């Protein structure tokens, strides 16, 4: 009985510390990188919605299929969705640029849950942020899902699989997955912005200007994102390697006895 109380007490302490730490980190003004309300013309908003919706629907279908056979899958999705939501609300000051931006956390979900469910997780996080946190916008939600949820997830997932296929270790693969997921998100945001605002101006020079403007902030932030992704993947590997095997992140032979 005593042991039970001790375990519950330590769990409560862990949970409280976790919550306090996250609340402190997220209590700040919105320094978003997402496209704000009204930035894109209606035509472009609809195009990005049309691209995003199939990925989100496929993500919903994937969750239904996997959670039928695996009871621990929904808690895993819940955990990672909360993590992505928190991380993508967290403004990080970048001293090299003197600006703030936030990591996306999308590399983590791309590696562990796959790109389709990752796109769905991003869509949910972005929707809540657009609605209540003045972070992004409803008209630009489709574009933001495409950049963070679709492009970020695909870049993270493909990078991770490529690195793993050449037998790179888990930590390095996770790091580069996070790095490229972050950079791909900002690259896609730049494409969406340049396409939406250019009017009669040529596309490529404007795109280059936007990418150059993002670079001083996003290059260091991508490295942070890579470190965070590697950290979460390694933490799960240490604590629940069976989950990573189930999600085909690692091979069964890689689990230490």
């Amino acid at each position, binding site marked *: 009985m005593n*042991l*039970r109380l001790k*375990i519950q007490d330590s769990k409560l302490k*862990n*949970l409280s510390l*976790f*919550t306090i*730490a*996250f*609340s*402190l980190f*997220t*209590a*700040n*003004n*919105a*320094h*978003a*990188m*997402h*496209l*704000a*309300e009204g*930035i894109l013309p209606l035509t472009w908003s609809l195009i990005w919605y049309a691209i995003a919706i199939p990925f989100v629907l496929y993500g919903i279908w994937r969750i239904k299929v996997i959670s039928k056979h695996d009871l*621990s899958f929904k808690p*895993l999705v*819940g*955990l990672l*969705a*909360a*993590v992505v939501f*928190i991380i993508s*609300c967290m*403004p990080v*000051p970048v*001293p090299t640029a*003197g*600006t*703030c*931006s936030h990591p996306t956390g999308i590399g983590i979900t791309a590696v562990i849950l796959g790109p389709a469910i990752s796109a769905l997780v991003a869509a949910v996080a972005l929707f*809540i942020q*657009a*609605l*209540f*946190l*003045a972070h992004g*916008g409803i*008209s630009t939600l489709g574009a933001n899902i495409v950049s963070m949820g679709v492009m970020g997830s695909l870049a993270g997932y493909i990078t991770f699989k490529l690195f793993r296929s050449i037998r790179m270790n888990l930590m390095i693969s996770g790091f580069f997955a996070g790095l490229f997921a972050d950079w791909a998100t900002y690259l896609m*945001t730049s494409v969406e*912005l340049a396409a939406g*605002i250019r009017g009669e101006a040529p596309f490529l020079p*404007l795109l280059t*200007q*936007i990418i150059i*403007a*993002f670079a001083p*902030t*996003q290059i260091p932030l991508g490295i942070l994102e890579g470190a965070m992704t590697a950290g979460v993947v390694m933490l799960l590997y240490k*604590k*629940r390697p069976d989950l990573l095997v189930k999600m085909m992140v690692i091979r069964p032979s890689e689990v230490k006895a």
Partner: protein
Amino acid sequence: MKINVKNKRLFLLVFFLLFAIHFSLFTDVNASEKWQGVDESVIEKFAKEHGIEPKEPLINTDQGDLLLFVFLIAGVAGGFIAGYYWRELINYKDRNIEKAYLRSKKL
């Protein structure tokens, strides 16, 4: 060298001091522009140059300290959800250990 609690605290203190000094000295940005989000410094800047102004959000919480409050609520809610599922997933081993212990004691 063995790292004891005192050394750890000293290490943390030095780390945070260096971090603070780095932030206060090594930025050459004007106070008015300091720590602007990239939404303002990049996205809105380029949009304005092309004659586009961002619109007010559907539910505008960016008023005074209201946004701080909403962010705090979001952080707490997100933190609790993450903590809850983390416990569900990770501490399951503790429950197994506890059950094994109780079985061994025939409780």
